[in-house]
């Protein structure tokens, strides 16, 4: 019964875990922690919204808990001086395949990764993000801007590379 449940939701939840972590092992650990929480709290689900949405919230909250435990917002400071591209360039992500997008988010520094995921994917406001991660609203905004800039830059580089390869072929 539990395994069937797991098999139904594992692929989507593993994608969530992958987005909030920096390596495969950490993603697997998060998957495990998330499913344990889901199974322990399944009786609390009130059938008021979608089950998938409820499970996703648990996974996101678990990821945030782990992020806060590690106190990682500062880790993004290392990328502070990177060139920040124009925000509009993030739309270029649309041109990438799922796996490539996930990989790029996965490779972001944890601070940028968390803010980007929470704002862009989960739809939280900066105020909510600041409360969730224990950072200021301003930090949340600047982290998001830098995350977008890094992603845009990498997408651009990636597209340039693929274009070059196509031309040579």
């Amino acid at each position, binding site marked *: 019964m539990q395994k069937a449940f797991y098999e139904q939701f594992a692929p*989507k939840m593993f994608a969530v875990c992958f*987005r909030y972590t920096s390596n495969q092992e950490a993603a697997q650990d998060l998957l*495990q922690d998330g499913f344990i929480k889901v*199974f322990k709290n399944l009786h609390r689900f009130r059938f008021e919204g979608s089950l998938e949405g409820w499970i996703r919230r648990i996974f996101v909250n678990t990821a945030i808990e782990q992020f806060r435990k590690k106190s990682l917002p500062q880790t993004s400071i290392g990328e502070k001086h990177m060139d920040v591209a124009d925000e509009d360039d993030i739309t270029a992500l649309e041109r990438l395949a799922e796996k490539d997008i996930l990989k790029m988010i996965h490779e972001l520094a944890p601070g940028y990764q968390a803010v980007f995921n929470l704002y862009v*994917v989960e739809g939280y406001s900066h105020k909510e993000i600041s409360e969730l991660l224990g950072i200021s609203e301003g930090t949340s905004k600047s982290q998001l801007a830098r995350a977008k800039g890094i992603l845009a830059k990498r997408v651009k580089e990636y597209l340039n590379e693929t274009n070059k390869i196509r031309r040579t072929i």
Partner: protein
Amino acid sequence: MSESLRNKLQQAEMNPPAGSWEAIAAAINETPLNKEQEIGQRIAQFELTPPVLAWESIEAALQENNKQPGKVISIRPWYYAAAAVAIAVLGIWLFRSNFSKTSAIFAEQKKLTAPIFQPLTSAINQAIEKNPFQISSVQKYVPVRAAVTVQPEMIAVSNPDDNTEDLELPSSDISSIEKVTADEVAEINAPLIKDSKGNIIYDTDLLKQSIKGNYISVTAPDGSTTRISTKFLHQLNYLHTSSTNGPAHPLMWGKNGIWQWQFDRWKKTILYNQEFNPGATNFLDALELLELLNEAQ
């Protein structure tokens, strides 16, 4: 402005020009914010195949997790509470046991010493003050020879490895002690021995005892008999032997050990407070005492 005019203006409606919505919708779709939302929604739907062994580890963790609540919530607090109660009870019991034992020993010690030695010493001293060398005049206060029925286990109490020096009491030869009963009349078999200050020296010959059931009858010089428990036989026997070395504190010796310590203390007090301490049955001591008496005269 009248109220009716204000209401009119607030409720007024006007159709927008044709094509307004299309323009607005196109503008909304073009905004980066909207694009971001689209990308976000798309990313949210992504799927990724988890590792093959992921379920096994989750299953194992779930089984472990199911065992933990019992330990954490119910067993541990009870375990610690029970342990704390057990330690507290044991501690109180040990304290009370030791305290009552010690109290009982010293209470019995008081009972034992008071009737025998104190009246004896004061009575003899008074008699000697009247006539120091007329022993016959204080006959009824003079100590009687000890009569101890010696049992093998009593003798075994004395420590053969004892190295104590200069602590021998005026001793009686246990094997030569004659057996008498508590009802027998006291007799004078030895001269009175006193120290330089004129106080009568404690003499084991003061003791006259007979064993009846669980009690020993000890007769004082004035003929009065006191019954004490046979459990003090070891201590009586100890008076005839040298002291033994025990642990650092008397409470560590047990009941007999405390008595032994107490008798040892008395013995030392007696020995150190007198210049000469002759034994009542030692012929050489008797001669030396005679010399001393002659010198005094």
